[in-house]
């Protein structure tokens, strides 16, 4: 059998160009890049728009004491809330007029407070907001706090002492490594980051793996395959396909990730310019360079999946059958994905460590351990070695499936028939 190159290169180049030049590719990439930039900037935009807006809630009560107390207390609680919403809490006497204003949209809500026979405070909110509305949620929480304070007072506890009851307990965490940032400072951001990485990996593997499988099936259904297979060896075709389509996928992926990274980088700056305050760049606290070695595993894992996708794709004769044929890969990918999600909460667990070494799962699980735990150098070596070994194994297996599969036409995907064909041929 002749060597891989230059034919694999020829196939890859055609594959890459064909895909990158399509209008669909350009549009989808552009849209995704916009979304990538947009998501990090969205909170800024929200604050920008919401910044000028105030939520106006009128308080009405037949009991003027209750009314004024509620206005003060609710105002204090809500203004103390950190999410930046501006509140306008006013007292109204004319409930009917306020009712009209709510319906006209002048007021966001009319909160009627009354004291029931047993002394409990009861609240009734008239509003157009849906039950899932955030501000309504905030008001609801505030009223709960208000009620509890009220109950304490009625139980004879001094309101000033009541403050002490709810004060946070002092609890410090001292890291072993004094140079490391306090986990508390970065953990939340790192957690989010790890979650994003898992989702991104999953999407890349799933989407672009499907591309590879689809393009193999397309060559079969358009019957180009018979010409290809006489011109080049299955191994050349398979690796060219994986490299070309994979590179196209990674191109799109890189554009989108770069756009998103740009968005994150700009978030603080934009916030400062637009909002005047420093804002808080959500991910600045995470050292993104931690992720550099992960890039290698991402590409390796991606190629591993894509190779097997190509092999399985060769069993389908039509686009509709691709899903069926690549089902097993989807399952494997899902297992890694869910494992990673569970692992997010137990990054130090032993099974997470094992999973991070297995090539099919390492692209998912490694970022978790990198961001939320620590990795020994030997682990890198083992994971890397296994990845390379699996890649070659996958290429061998996939090429076998491929050389048998590409000439099977019209067959339902049948693994027993495949296995026979793999054994019979070559």
């Amino acid at each position: 059998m002749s060597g891989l190159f230059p034919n694999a290169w020829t196939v890859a180049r055609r594959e890459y160009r064909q895909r990158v030049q399509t209008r669909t590719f350009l549009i989808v990439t552009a849209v995704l890049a916009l979304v990538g930039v947009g998501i990090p900037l969205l909170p800024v935009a929200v604050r920008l728009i919401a910044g000028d807006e105030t939520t106006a809630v009128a308080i009405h009560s037949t009991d003027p004491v209750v009314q004024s107390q509620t206005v003060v207390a609710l105002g204090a609680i809500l203004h103390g809330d950190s999410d930046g919403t501006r509140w306008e809490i006013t007292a109204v006497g004319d409930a009917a007029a306020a009712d009209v204003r709510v319906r006209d949209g002048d007021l966001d809500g009319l909160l009627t407070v009354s004291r029931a026979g047993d002394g409990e405070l009861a609240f009734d909110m008239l509003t157009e907001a849906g039950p899932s509305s955030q501000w309504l949620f905030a008001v609801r929480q505030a009223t709960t706090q208000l009620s509890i304070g009220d109950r304490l007072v009625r139980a004879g506890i001094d309101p000033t002492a009541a403050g002490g009851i709810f004060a946070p307990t002092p609890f410090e965490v001292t890291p072993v490594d004094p140079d490391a940032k306090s986990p508390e400072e970065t953990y939340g951001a790192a957690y989010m980051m790890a979650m994003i990485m898992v989702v991104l990996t999953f999407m890349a593997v799933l989407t672009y793996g499907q591309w590879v499988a689809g393009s193999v099936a397309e060559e079969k259904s358009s019957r180009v395959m018979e010409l290809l297979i006489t011109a080049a060896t299955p191994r050349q075709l398979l690796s060219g396909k994986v490299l070309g389509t994979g590179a196209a996928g990674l191109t799109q992926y890189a554009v989108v990730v770069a756009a998103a990274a740009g968005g994150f980088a700009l978030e603080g700056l934009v916030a400062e310019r637009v909002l005047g305050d420093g804002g808080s760049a959500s991910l600045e606290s995470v050292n993104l360079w931690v992720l550099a070695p992960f890039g290698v595993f991402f590409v390796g894992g991606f190629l591993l999946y894509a190779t097997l996708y190509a092999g399985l794709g060769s069993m389908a004769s039509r686009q509709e059958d691709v899903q069926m044929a690549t089902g097993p890969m989807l399952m494997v990918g899902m297992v890694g994905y869910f494992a990673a999600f569970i692992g997010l909460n137990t990054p130090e667990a032993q099974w997470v460590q094992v999973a991070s070494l297995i090539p099919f799962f390492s692209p998912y699980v490694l970022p978790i351990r990198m961001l939320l735990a620590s990795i020994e150098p030997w682990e890198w070596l083992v994971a890397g070695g296994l990845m390379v070994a699996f890649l070659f194994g996958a290429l061998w297996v996939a090429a076998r499936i491929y050389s048998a599969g590409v000439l099977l036409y019209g067959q339902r995907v049948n693994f027993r028939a495949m296995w026979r064909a793999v054994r019979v041929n070559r």
Partner: protein
Amino acid sequence: MSLVVDSVSKRFGPVLALDATSFSVEPGHIFGLLGANGAGKTTCMRIVLDILRPDSGSISWQGRANTDLPRRTWGYLPEERGLYLRMPVIEVLRFFAALYGVPAAQATAEVGEWLERFRIPHYRDRRVEELSKGNQQKIQFIAAILHDPEVLIMDEPFSGLDPVNVQLLKEAFLEMRDRGKTLIFSTHQMETVEELCESIAIVDAGRVVVSGTVRDVKRAMGRQVVRLATEEADGGDWVEQLPGVTLIRRGEDYLELQVRDGADPRSILAAAIARGERVTRFEIADPSLEEVFIEHVGRPAAVEEERHLAGSGRGVDR
């Protein structure tokens, strides 16, 4: 040295797709591989191309085993046609040329020549999907020969082509032969075989039932056919009195006579003129290949289909 297919057998599950198939093709010849649907022609071609490996037997070209030959020895036009529909013609062709290691500049120049010859130079930059079936077929033919293969193997190259395109393709075949190439093709149209092929093999149920030059194969039938029409529709009973002549068919306005080997067909014409018949039609022909084919392969095709089905899905002739 010729292309030698030497007792090649290939079994797909319970079905023997090729059963000790042997034939040879002289270099520089056009060779017709004939057979009913499912006889094993495509399997045979794929084995020659080393896409499939035989269970036993061997193939050699110029004395070298096909497994040792570089892929660019062969050009292949498969039965089921397909190209990258979304790509411009020139790019598809350059791509296939590149797979065979042909430099882009050389490929471009040759594509130009061939498009000119096929009278479609203006389709050079069009996308393949914009072309008619006939023109796509021509592009596929060019794709099969751009790397200047020594042997060109084509599965049903004429199917679905209109007579003008058939003519162009036939001319291309002859041109390739004149360049010293060897051509092997299969078809169901016996007229085409008669016109182009020097020699043939008829495959039936994976076995070669007859092979050789077209003339020898026909002569081996041991008879010639004469069609005779005269102005007087007298029934022509006198013909049957002639030695070595049998009346095989009474057409609407002519008689079809079979002349046994050794008898002289011209004696019929002489006899007719001697009798004072006014001859309006006189044709002498070897039996047509169609007749040869039907004689050799003509048995209930159901058996063929059964064979085909039992072996289907395993790369058999489809």
